[in-house]
């Protein structure tokens, strides 16, 4: 990445990571950081549209949503929450290692982060599979589920709960997959020794992205799995 731009860099002592149009590395880093935060703002609004829809329909069809929420596997959800928080820790450690320029340590923490992300996605697959088997996927094969205690059918809007559940967790999972792609790219770069005490911006930026995706889950988990669980 940096190699092509370096050819254009002006001064004779400018570092190879410096793109030609920036004055110095701190200025370049400031631009990247602001850009990443602005991007995360757009992500908040991107997810925000679905959160709005969820909040409105949950308030409108409370029994349907609470009943359907009870059908989610709270143990798997809680396990996944713990896994993601762990992955945020390993990501933070990777950023720390990169600021020290310790190549092997960076790679180790990045691999751990990918593994934890992979576990999360694996558990998600198990959860989705269960939903398929129980005919809880919206569409022609959807069967209105029963209330776990009363064994009466839930209101038909429970289908919409699952619509939103799949949209929100699906979009979150897509962000995780993109994140794993970015982490793999970082490992390739780190193996080449791209990150030094002077320059670790990409690790820092991907770190911000990864934490953001985790934070989305921190909101999704209570909203989808926990809220109103004991009122039935």
């Amino acid at each position, binding site marked *: 990445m940096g190699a092509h731009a370096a050819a254009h860099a002006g001064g004779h002592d400018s570092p190879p990571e410096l793109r030609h149009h920036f004055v110095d590395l701190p200025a370049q880093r400031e631009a990247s950081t*602001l850009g990443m935060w602005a991007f995360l703002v757009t992500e*908040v609004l991107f997810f925000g*549209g679905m959160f709005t829809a969820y909040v409105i329909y949950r308030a409108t069809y409370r029994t349907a949503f609470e009943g359907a929420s009870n059908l989610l596997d709270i143990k798997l959800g809680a396990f996944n929450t713990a896994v993601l928080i762990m992955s945020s820790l390993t990501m933070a450690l990777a950023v720390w290692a990169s600021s020290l320029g310790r190549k092997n340590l960076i790679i180790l923490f990045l691999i751990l982060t990918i593994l934890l992300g992979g576990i999360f996605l694996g558990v998600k697959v198990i959860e989705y599979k269960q939903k398929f088997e129980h005919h809880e996927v919206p569409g*022609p094969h959807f069967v209105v589920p029963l209330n776990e205690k009363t064994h009466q059918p839930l209101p038909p809007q429970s289908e*919409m709960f699952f619509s939103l559940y799949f949209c929100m967790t699906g979009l979150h999972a897509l962000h995780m997959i993109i994140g794993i792609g970015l982490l793999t790219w970082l490992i390739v770069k780190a193996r080449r020794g791209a990150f030094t005490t002077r320059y670790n911006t990409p690790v820092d930026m991907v770190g911000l992205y990864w934490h953001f995706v985790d934070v989305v889950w921190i909101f999704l988990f209570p909203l989808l799995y926990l809220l109103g669980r004991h009122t039935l």
Partner: protein
Amino acid sequence: MSATAPDETPRVAERPNYLNTGYGVKSWLLTIDHKRIAILYLIGVTFFFAIGGLYAAAIRLELLTPAGDVFQSETYNKLFTTHGVMMVFFFMIPGIPGVLGNFLIPLMIGAKDVAFPRLNLLSWYLYIIGGLLALWATVHGGVDTGWTFYTPYSTVYSNGWVVVTGVGVFISGFSSILTGLNFLVTLHTMRAPGMGWTRMPLFCWSMYATAIIQILGTPVIAITLLLLVAERVFHLGVFDPAQGGDPVLFQHLFWFYSHPAVYIMILPAMGVISELVTAFARKPIFGYKFIAASSVAIATLSFLVWGHHMFVSGQSVYAGLVFSILSFMVGVPSAIKVFNWTATLYKGSVSYQTPLLYAIGFIGLFTFGGLTGLMLAALGLDIHVHDTYFIVAHFHYIMVGGTIMAYLGGLHYWWPKISGRLYPEYWSRVSAWVIFIGFNLTFFPQFIVGYLGMPRRYHAYPEEFQVLNVMSTAGASILGIGYVIPLVYFAWSMRYGKRAADNPWGATGLEWETPSPPPTENFAVTPTVTGRPYDYLTGREEAAAG
């Protein structure tokens, strides 16, 4: 600093500039130079404008006679949908930011490029891919939902290519987001030494306000279109009343972006006008800080007024009341701009060159569009004219009379810088007048016919409306000719035009301190800014100095 003096010294070889550094297709399609990307946008934007214009011509042809005789009603629905989609998403929104924003922002702030050059190129590709997808959908049968894609018609009943068009708009939305993000970061971090926020040109201020809207608004339409596509494909039910969904929620989400989006279209235009007015009045701009702040105020208010599109959609009366009051408030910062432009012209040494003709046209037409906007913000009146030609006339006064006038004015003003050539002054004045006359003849009758009750989006209408519709169609023909003339002489000037001096207008601003056309790295030495922008000597100061 002599005005309009052509290049006196004939040159043996051309100075190296961004246009002659490479000639191959690859040197254009893989460029990361913001100036070349601006040219790429110019080509794309012109292409989609022509497509949208052809559809407008078809619409006006059908409306020449009261009977629905040229096109069937469904075909007509597809015509106005494609006209709207092409013009809004692939001309208006990327227009001024993509072409003038890309070219000028780094030059105006004394930077070598935008903050993320490769992201900038990606933006262009996303825009083109999105536009071509939407065009593909049009060619293969079209969409008949209107550019607003209202549910449940778009998700359940329509037979058109809603999904493909939706995906096209979704993809180009990311182009808009990334452009806004790029400009925001560029303006924050790459200003030349000495250029504080209050020394930044007003075009940059308006692009900054635009970037805020692009960043905060566009993701919402992205997710809304994603839900729409998912709903149509998988029958999610989120917007389908049959499954408990709420179509009004779609309208809320849609307009939460699409109302601010009209400010994505007009704010850059206002920035252009601020530059033109001060340059051709030879006077420092009146109320610099007020104009800058009013851009940000418009951006802020833009997010609080979306409900005025839904006065008759079953939204609560009290919400309507609040949205009505907030919509009136947008008039305040808009009026601040108009008053400041007028005050700048007052007692200036005004030279009526082509860019200023466009700018003056803008001020008049925008004021007209803005005042009728206030009429529409009034709850009672809106119910009378809702979904009539009155509203069509209103937003065309803002978008065509406002944005396109400013876009063309800006293109004429910076064309010597962009191409290094001058265009024929006589023909450019002719085209400015033809466009102004054609525009008013097209759209003024629509105010009347709408107020009399002619609804929009029908291919047939009662006979008593024919005279006004014939006027409108005649105006559209004139307008079309007006748009072709600049296309011809701009293309002509690239090869045969006189070479432009570095600063042909004698204007202030960093973009005029570098050669025309600028070298790839923009400035040989990074400039240092020592004073306020628009530092024109007024007549009195000149007399005192001389």
